[in-house]
Each structure stands twice: as structure tokens, then as C-alpha cells.
């Protein structure tokens, strides 16, 4: 915990952390200082002049809050007529050439210009000369669509590409009225974090081609979640909406700030993985690849399991601890071998030193902590012996297909699957299970941070999660406290974790 200092804002004493600038320090206690160009991840730039505040008895008396460290006894003025006039004048300046195409702008509803206009400006334009026209709907590459007219030239996107991705594709060219953000000719945005500029942009100048015109943002429900795209476990907002007569659908993922995991950003691949939650899902139970009654499917699966002498269960490394432990207990009960073989989830050389990891499995650490065997030899040996093979949501990526087909020739395959994976069609019985946006649970990321998340999406016909499906197949765990008790019985760091009190930032094990 940083040292606390006392300063005055509008004459009232507040206690803030030292070592931060005024925007962050005062913002932490709920007092907003308007700003465009400052972003905590990109540092102060001081170009927008929106955060100018008065310092009583200060030298100078007027300072940009983003570049001024909070100091003991400082008397910050935000509500004097002079400061209000500065803020209004800055807004007027920003809006001189703004096209006000809010009706077609995807940012409308979460736009800083709109919010500040209502709070700090609120007057009609005095301009009677023609507005400067610039280019609209520019394809910047990487799924980013740029509108130069809406831009307030805060330079956040430019700084992001220079400081964070260090690729430097963007720059501000020309001066004054003609200043605009642009790419170098023939050099589009080409990095795996490019879509973060869409979130960074305080206005609608940078929009996502993927989200373009899909929804107005005020319709979206913004639930917290964790990306399951790789083992980093980036914190995200799951923005979803149930349109009239339609099903609850995810429209986008946005990064959620967590200093312990991902900071302010996520990678593009993770961001676009929201499509996987809507597409290619297994929604009905199948028998030999053909739709089949769900209740009957359970009966068939149960019969197949009891009749088989050797059962092998393969779990997905994406499942949360709760579902893994439920599977473990289920396997013990029916005397099955349990494998977490998932070498195919590791894509060598794909990761970088920022967020993207080689390992595309969200909860491999959890798999290891629960003591589930992830070895390849164990998996193949058990598979050859098995008369019944239960594959729980494991995609089996990059697996030796010929060997798999050979091993499964005499085996009854039961697939509990969230998506229509290859194995589903070959399975004797396939039962749909929920995907990660539809259930809650806890996962451990590559750095050993335990994070919990809640269900965000509720489908019109909810699909049972793995714990529930296993219970219906005769599993012994039926309630959440029972599942947690089962996790606590596992020796190791998980035994002492209070799963109901995992901090929002995650728990470093």
C-alpha cells in the first residue's frame, strides 16, 4: 500500500495515494478530472489540455492534471469559473470540426465527447464556417476502421503502437486543421494487439470492423468474464444482448483492467474468440451423428459406461477446477482412468513476451494441481485398453488422427462437448455441455493466478455444464459446496483456498 497524502479538491480534504498524478489519485476517490489523451497504460502526453486544473497559490496556477504529481496540501480547483470556462472552451475547440454523426457512430453511448459535452459543455456551436472534411471509413488493417473526422488527435493509438506493441504503424501527419492519424502508405496495422486502439480511442475514430453496426452499445449487458483463448486468462467484459424473439448472443469481448494478469489490454485473437461462443456449438444430443432425444441419450451413455470394463475419461484443459474435480470424483466412482492429455493445445512459438502464450489451454495449471495425468503415453495406453472412451470437451487438436481412429475402432465413444468437434460425429452418444460464458468457475493461469468468474450468458434453453451432466450420469457431486469440498480434499495449494473469497484481481498461488 502506497503512502497516503492529504490534499484539497474544491476546498474539501481528500486522502489519496502519493506517487500518482492528479487524474489517477483524485480519480481513485471518485472525483473525475476530464481528459482525452491521458491513459494510465500509456502515460501522460499533455496534448489535449482537457485536464487543466487550477492550483490555488500554485506556481504556475494552472497545470495539466495528467502531468502533475499529487502533493501534500495541494489545493486543486475544479469548479472555479475559470476552470469551467477552460473546459467549455476545450470542448468547443474539439467539436469545431466534429461531424456529429452519432447516429451512425458505433462509439455513441460510450463516447467521451458525448459524456463531456453533457457534463462540461452543453452549448450550441458558434461556428458558421464550413467544417473541414477528412476521410471516413478508412481500413487501417487488423480489423480497425478509422474515421479521421471524428478524431480528437489525442494520440493514444499512436502511442499504443509505439510504446506497447513497438510496431509504430500509426502516426499523426500534417498540422492544425489538416492533422490526422494515418498509416504509412501500404503499411497497415499489423500486430496482434491492433484492436486495442478501438478501446483506447476515447471517441469513435477507431472502430472495430467485427463489431461494426452489430449493436448499439447501450443495449449490451456488460458482464465480467475471463478469456479462455490461451493460458494467460485475460480479464474481459462479455458484452451480450438478447434481442427480441432471439437468443442471448455475445457481440464482443473487451479487456477488463487487471494489473496482476493482463493490464489494460487483450490480444486480437482472444477478443475475436467471442464468435466461437456463438458458432459451431453443439446444441442437441446426437446418437451416431444424428439428433437424438436427450433423456434417452443419458440412458444410452449410462448403459455404455456400466457395460464397459475399462473406461477412459479425457478432460479438456479449458474446464474450470470445479468441473475437473467433479470429473475426477466421477472417474473414481466408476473406476475409470482419467487423462488430461492435451499436448495439442500447445502451439510452439506462437506466444510472445506480452500476453499471448504458447499454451492455448486456459486451466492447465489447475489440471496439474488436481493431479490429473496429462502424459501422452498414459493416454494412448489407456485408450487402447478402453472399451468406453468419454471425451469431455477436449478438442484433441493436432492429434495423430490415424492412431486415434485405430484405437477407437472397438471403443464406444461418448462425447460431452460444447462445440461440434470432429469426434462428435463419430461418437456413439454426444451430449452438449455449456461453454465458458455460460457457467461460473475458477481457473489458474500460466503465472499461477487463481481467478474465478461467473456465468454471463443465459441461453433461452440453458445447456447443462459438465458437473451437472456427470451428476445425471450418476456422478456423486450434486451441489456447489460438495464440489468445493472435493477441491479442498486435494492436497496442495488448493486445499486452503476460500473459493467464495477470491479477490477480483485473482489470487496468486
Amino acid at each position, binding site marked *: 500500500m502506497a503512502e497516503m497524502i492529504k490534499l484539497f479538491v474544491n476546498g474539501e480534504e481528500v486522502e489519496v495515494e502519493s506517487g500518482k498524478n492528479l487524474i489517477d489519485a483524485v480519480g481513485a476517490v471518485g472525483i473525475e478530472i476530464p481528459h482525452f489523451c491521458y491513459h494510465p497504460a500509456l502515460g501522460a502526453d499533455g496534448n489535449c489540455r482537457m485536464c487543466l486544473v487550477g492550483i490555488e497559490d500554485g506556481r504556475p496556477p494552472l497545470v495539466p492534471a495528467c502531468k502533475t504529481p499529487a502533493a501534500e496540501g495541494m489545493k486543486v480547483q475544479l469548479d472555479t469559473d475559470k476552470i469551467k470556462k477552460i473546459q467549455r472552451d476545450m470542448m468547443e475547440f474539439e467539436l469545431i470540426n466534429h461531424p456529429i*454523426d*452519432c*447516429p*451512425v457512430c458505433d462509439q455513441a453511448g460510450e463516447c467521451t465527447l458525448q459524456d463531456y459535452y453533457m457534463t462540461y459543455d452543453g452549448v450550441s456551436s458558434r461556428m458558421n464556417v464550413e467544417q473541414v472534411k477528412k476521410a471516413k471509413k478508412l481500413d487501417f488493417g487488423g480489423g480497425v476502421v478509422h474515421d479521421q473526422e471524428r478524431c480528437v488527435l489525442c494520440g493514444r493509438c499512436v502511442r499504443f503502437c509505439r510504446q506497447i506493441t513497438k510496431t509504430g504503424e500509426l502516426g499523426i501527419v500534417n498540422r492544425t486543421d489538416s492533422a490526422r492519424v494515418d498509416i504509412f502508405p501500404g503499411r497497415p496495422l499489423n500486430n496482434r494487439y491492433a484492436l486495442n486502439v478501438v478501446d483506447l480511442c476515447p471517441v469513435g475514430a477507431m472502430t472495430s470492423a467485427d463489431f461494426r*453496426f452489430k449493436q*448499439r452499445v447501450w*443495449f449490451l449487458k456488460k458482464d465480467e468474464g475471463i478469456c479462455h483463448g490461451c493460458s494467460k486468462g485475460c480479464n474481459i467484459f462479455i458484452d451480450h444482448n438478447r434481442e427480441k424473439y432471439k437468443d442471448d448472443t455475445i457481440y464482443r469481448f473487451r479487456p477488463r483492467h487487471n494489473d496482476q494478469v493482463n493490464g489494460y489490454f487483450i490480444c486480437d485473437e482472444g477478443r475475436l474468440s467471442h464468435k466461437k461462443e456463438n458458432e459451431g456449438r453443439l446444441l442437441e444430443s446426437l446418437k451416431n451423428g444424428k439428433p437424438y432425444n436427450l433423456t434417452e441419450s443419458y440412458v444410452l451413455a449410462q448403459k455404455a459406461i456400466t457395460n464397459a470394463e475399462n473406461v477412459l475419461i479425457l478432460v479438456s484443459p479449458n474446464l474450470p477446477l470445479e468441473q475437473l474435480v467433479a470429473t475426477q470424483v466421477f472417474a473414481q466412482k466408476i473406476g475409470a482412468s482419467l487423462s488430461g492429455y492435451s499436448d495439442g493445445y500447445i502451439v510452439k512459438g506462437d506466444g510472445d513476451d506480452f500476453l499471448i502464450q504458447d499454451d492455448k489451454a486456459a486451466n492447465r495449471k489447475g489440471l496439474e494441481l488436481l493431479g490429473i495425468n496429462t502424459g501422452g503415453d498414459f493416454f494412448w495406453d489407456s485408450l487402447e485398453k478402453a472399451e468406453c472412451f468419454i471425451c469431455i470437451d477436449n478438442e484433441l487438436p493436432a492429434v495423430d488422427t490415424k492412431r486415434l481412429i485405430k484405437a477407437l475402432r472397438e471403443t464406444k465413444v461418448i462425447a460431452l462437448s460444447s462445440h461440434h468437434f470432429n469426434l462428435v460425429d463419430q461418437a456413439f452418444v454426444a451430449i452438449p455441455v455449456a461453454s465458458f460464458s455460460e457457467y461460473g468457475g475458477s481457473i489458474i493461469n500460466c503465472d499461477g493466478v487463481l481467478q474465478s468468474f461467473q456465468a454471463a450468458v443465459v441461453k433461452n434453453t440453458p445447456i447443462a455444464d459438465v458437473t451437472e451432466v456427470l451428476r445425471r450420469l450418476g456422478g456423486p457431486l450434486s451441489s456447489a459446496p460438495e464440489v468445493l469440498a472435493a477441491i479442498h480434499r486435494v492436497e496442495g495449494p488448493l486445499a486452503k483456498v476460500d473459493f467464495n473469497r477470491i479477490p477480483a484481481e485473482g489470487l496468486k498461488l
Partner: protein
Amino acid sequence: MSAKVKVVKRKGDTLPEKLYLVEVLKGMKTSFGHFWRNLRDNSRLYVRHYPEQQPEITPRWRGRHRLTTHEDGSIKCVACFMCQTNCPSRCIMIEAGERLDDRDEKLPVRFDIDLLECIYCGYCVEACPKDAIRMDTGIFSLVEHNREKMLVGLDELAATPGAFTEDDYQKRGL
């Protein structure tokens, strides 16, 4: 503060009224009076010969909706969803798409109004920043044989003309 009490004398207590038959005859006199009058000359009827004789609708009347168009026939709507957001009965369903004429960037690819759910409040017209939706078609009577047909789509909404001149419409309520 004491409430003002106004005492009203109860009617119907006189002898002829209590006799009942006298009042019935008085009522019959009124009914037959109208009957004979209308039989002799039906030009001064108190009721309208609907539907042969249509009522006169003022430009302020909120009838069935329509989507307005530019002079070249392209639709004015830019799918900003203001009407859908403002609609208290949630009867407007829009899907937006990319617009390729030079007028704007966005247009509706689907614009459905469920007329059975609509309460004709006119909030959509008030919310529209582009004057793209109006309720000036003068259509006030909607009858269909099934529910599905009461869902009007983009083409039908855009094809219906307004019932008033632009001047009259702009002056409504002034």
C-alpha cells in the same frame, strides 16, 4: 383545511319518475324523434357513413408509420436505433448494415414494426434525428387475418406515401 362539500340533490325521486312508464315514454319520444327526422332527411345524420364516408384526419393524427425517403428514393433512415431505444412497447426491430451510397455509412437492412404491439404513442417520430420515421400516412384502421401480417417490414414502410403536403406536416401543432 376543510374540504369543500357540495350537496347534490338526488334525482329520480318525483312521482312521475317513480311511476317509470312516463319516463320510458319520454325516452321513446327522443328515439322516435331521431328516427323520423333521419327517415325524412338523412343528410343531417349525427353519425358518419363509415366506411363509405372517411373521417377527415389532421396532420397531427398518429396513424400507421412510414419511413421517409430522399428525393432519389433512397431511405433516410440510418439505423441509429433511437426509435427502437425510445419505444415503450418494444415493437420496433431493426438490423443495421453497411450503406454503400455516398449519403451515409449505415442503413437498416431490416426494419420491422409489430403493429399489434405498437401503442401509437409517436415516441419513435420524436426520437428520430433524421426525420426518417413519420406517422403521417393517415392509415388508422388496420385489419388482417393473422398476426404475422401485422408485422410491417422495411419495403412496405418505405413504399407508403404520406397523406399530407410537406407544408401541412411541418405546420402540425403550430
